[in-house]
């Protein structure tokens, strides 16, 4: 106990009689026993007085606070939406979106054009064929029998060791078709071959754009 101002901590603990002899002598240096007991009883009475207080907050207070809270936070969006963005970032994002959308649209246009073009071409196929006992004419004829119509493929046959292989070339000339020049298709010698081709446009120019 450092000072008499701390005597109230002793008074909180109990009546004068409940104190130890040292504490009693300390109290008696500052006040009488009766006065100390009055202190104790005053503290007890105050604590009881505070405890028995039945005051409660009015419901209107909670209602008002709820309203205030909702008003303040009702329009609050999530932080990532609320985040401010520099002007250059916004401009860059707009530019990027425009660029991507242009590229996408352009690609789809290109695809549409290429789908409508059909290309025919003439080619020469060289084929290696082994010579067996048959003559080349017979061999080519037998080979043609085994392949699909107008589409020769290379067929390899087992060579016997004592037979001498000879390379021959067989030309298969497929249907001749006009050359294709990008989006312009020129039909040659096709005029009037079918009902579809024999249109006014074909008769007029022979060129379809």
């Amino acid at each position, binding site marked *: 106990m450092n*000072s008499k101002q701390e005597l*109230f901590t002793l008074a909180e603990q109990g009546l004068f009689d409940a104190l130890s002899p040292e504490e009693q002598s300390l109290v008696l240096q500052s006040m009488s026993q009766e006065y100390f007991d009055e202190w104790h*009883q005053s503290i007890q009475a105050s604590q009881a007085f*505070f405890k028995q207080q039945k005051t409660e907050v009015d419901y209107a207070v909670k209602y008002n606070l709820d309203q205030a809270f909702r008003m303040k936070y009702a329009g609050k969006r999530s932080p990532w939406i609320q985040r401010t963005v520099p002007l250059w970032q916004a401009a860059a994002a707009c530019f990027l979106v425009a660029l991507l959308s242009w590229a996408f649209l352009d690609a789809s246009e290109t695809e549409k054009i290429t789908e409508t073009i059909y290309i025919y071409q003439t080619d020469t196929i060289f084929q290696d064929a082994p010579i067996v006992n048959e003559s080349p004419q017979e061999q080519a004829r037998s080979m043609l029998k085994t392949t699909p119509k107008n589409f020769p493929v290379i067929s390899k046959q087992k060579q016997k060791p004592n037979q001498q292989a000879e390379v021959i070339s067989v030309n298969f000339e497929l249907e001749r078709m006009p050359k294709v020049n990008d989006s312009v298709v020129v039909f040659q010698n096709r005029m009037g071959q079918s009902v579809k081709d024999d249109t006014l446009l074909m008769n007029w120019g022979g060129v379809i754009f």
Partner: protein
Amino acid sequence: MSRNKYGLPIGIFYDVLTYVKTFTYRMKHYSNLSDEQLMQFIAKGKETAFNELYRRYADKMHRFFYNMLYQDEDLANDFTQELFLKIINNPKAFNPKWKFSTWFYTLAKNLCKNEYRRVSRQPQFQDLQENSSVIPATSQLEREQEQQLLASAIAQLEPYHRECFILRYQQGFNLKVISEILGCPEGTVKSRVYYAIQKIAEQLGPILNDKN
């Protein structure tokens, strides 16, 4: 350390799972959070967190204002509302490093100080105290008389004595916390409580002596 078939330590999965479980549980049950954590949620606009904080402090603060402001219930309601409005309007004024209750009571004390400055009221219990001896001395009435006298005595205390006395004997804070709330040394708090008890004992003395 035990590892699973992917070679990763199992303990980490367990820790992460426990953390997620705890987090979701706490999100659902704000009652388990500390006041300081609740304030962080309030700043994010979580109404449930505010309701929990209100549940914890509304009645305490109302009683504090009731005793600090001349035992006027309407005034106590107004000040309780004003105090919580401060939290709603500016929750970021609270620094999470502080202890919430200390900060909250400091706000409340400042509101009371402003009120004392604004209105210099005369104690309302002067007449009551003078007429108290007229009341018949039955046991029930004696108790009522004692309580009225006590209320009068508390109301008559100087504001800085009263706030120390209420924080000590109503709110039950220790001297260190009171000194933090009031922003003054502990010695000053001791002195104020000492004088508050002295004055109350002087006023209650006659009744207490009659009882004995």
